[in-house]
């Protein structure tokens, strides 16, 4: 009835559901299933559950799944295994956009701020691709290096103005991912990333075709530039939504797609569900580590993912059979 692919994916989804339930019951405030049902503390446990725990867990799943997915889309479109929003200037550009809108239009609703950040992210990513096109040498590792340099320059501009305008603390909050501040009412923007994930899945075959290069794409009757633009819009909007609500989660979009690629290849239709599921699961586990390792204090998710991610990334780079490249 189900083929192996569906069975394995089903098991992975069940595992994530198990982790999700576990995640809901981890925290400083004592929330246990018994308390919820006994209603012994005047519904305080239920309140914590609805206002903090469930929103936080949903935010983790949405941000983790969507950041991993856009990492993969970027890698396919840039045709480079080491590109993701934080190695292409996308995240830093979103941060700059956020700073600009905070200074120029502080009263703008959060949705509007997110759109401005998306626009900046899009421009930054286009600039990155533009620079790549004019660099003759296309060694696999030069591409992310260029992105990191570009990100550094944009980040420096942002930091300079944030420093002058006394906004360094806000900037830091945007760029260091943390789910600690997630409460009901402060994460709902992330549902946009679910819509974008669905859109990306619908367009999956276009991305796979574009990943084969401009000539193949044209031969198959698709408009290459249009597919690229669609992909980059999805990447930029997801990045902006996540930066605005959670902050930057480094390496996520790099590691998860590369692991999935080893198992499943590059057919986006097949790999997208896996990337989303593993991305969500990876962030969920990292967030739980961050919450229990110095209990009752909390380590920001960006730090945990950064540490775990950089180890995995080094491992990936140093592996002998370099299919990753």
């Amino acid at each position, binding site marked *: 009835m189900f083929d192996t692919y569906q069975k394995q994916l089903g098991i992975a989804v069940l595992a994530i559901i198990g982790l999700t339930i576990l995640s809901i019951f981890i925290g400083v405030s004592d929330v246990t299933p018994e308390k919820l049902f006994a209603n012994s503390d005047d519904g305080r446990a239920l309140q914590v559950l609805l206002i903090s725990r469930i929103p936080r867990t949903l935010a983790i799943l949405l941000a983790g799944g969507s950041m991993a997915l856009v990492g993969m889309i970027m890698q*396919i479109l840039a*045709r*480079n*295994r080491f590109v993701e929003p934080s190695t292409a200037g996308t995240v830093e550009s979103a941060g700059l956009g956020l700073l600009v809108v905070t200074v120029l239009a502080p009263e703008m609703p959060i949705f509007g701020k997110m759109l401005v950040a998306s626009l900046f992210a899009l421009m930054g990513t286009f600039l990155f691709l533009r620079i790549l096109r004019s660099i003759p040498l296309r060694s696999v590792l030069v591409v992310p290096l260029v992105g990191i340099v570009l990100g550094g320059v944009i980040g420096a501009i942002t930091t300079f103005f944030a420093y002058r305008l006394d906004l360094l603390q806000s900037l830091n909050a945007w760029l260091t991912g943390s789910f600690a501040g997630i409460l009901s009412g402060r994460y709902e923007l992330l549902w946009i990333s679910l819509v974008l994930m669905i859109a990306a899945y619908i367009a*999956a*075959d*276009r991305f*796979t*075709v574009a*990943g*084969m*290069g*401009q*000539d*193949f794409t*044209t*031969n*198959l*009757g*698709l*408009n290459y530039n249009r597919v690229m633009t669609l992909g980059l819009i999805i990447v930029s909007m997801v990045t902006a939504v996540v930066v605005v609500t959670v902050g930057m989660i480094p390496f996520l979009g790099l590691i998860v797609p590369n692991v999935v*690629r080893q198992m499943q*290849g*590059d*057919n986006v*239709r097949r790999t997208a569900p896996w990337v989303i599921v593993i991305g969500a699961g990876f962030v969920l586990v990292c967030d739980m580590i961050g919450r229990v390792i110095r209990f009752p204090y909390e380590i920001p998710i960006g730090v945990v993912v950064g540490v775990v991610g950089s180890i995995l990334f080094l491992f990936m780079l140093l592996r002998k059979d370099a*299919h990753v490249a």
Partner: protein
Amino acid sequence: MIEIKNVTKAYDKAVVVDGVTLQIPAGGITSIIGPNGAGKSTLLSMISRLLPMNGGQVLVDGLDVTTTAGDVLARRLSILRQDNHIGSRLTVRDLVTFGRYPYSKGRPTVEDLKHVRMALQYLNLESMSERFLDELSGGQRQRAFVAMVLCQDTDYVLMDEPLNNLDMKHAVAMMKILRRAADELHKTIVLVLHDVNFASCYSDYIVAMKDGKIACHGSPYDIINANVMCNVYEIDVAVQDIDGKRIAIYYT
């Protein structure tokens, strides 16, 4: 029929294709030969709308390639370029299935899957259909690309150096497959070939290019002779009739 009218391509001052006018008849194999830098690949890229032209017009069955919608043209004409460095980790079957994209838009029907099976069979790839492209040899990969293009099932099939990466055995097998596709499936096949003897043995029509222009065109019998070869390639070429085929000898 492919009608090429006064097509020109220039980069800055360097004219690569210089006002080429040519009609490629429907049916059979047409080979474009000529020395490096003659503009063969550039011409092929312009015919297949991969490269914009600076002037002129190309009509495929009366459709202007620069103005016809991409997906309409993709069901008429397919192109395989010379260097296919696709980094994507796709299985052979996935790649060939994408050849149906102009019809299926990513949702292959039973009919589409039938074409995929046939193309895999035609190129003898069934045993490796589930392998990833990066696990194949250069020759096997080349066959997979050709299978994808055949799966696209267009009346016109354009290929730039399809014998790239192929050894003698597989080069002959590839030319036989293309000959069969022309004869049995009634395709119009346009090839850019380096090896004039393959062009001589398998083409119905040969176009010789030099310095961005058509030097001459005609049947293999007309084109493969010492005079034309010397003129086009600027080396001494002896041509002999061997088993009814014209063979150029130019190795010494």
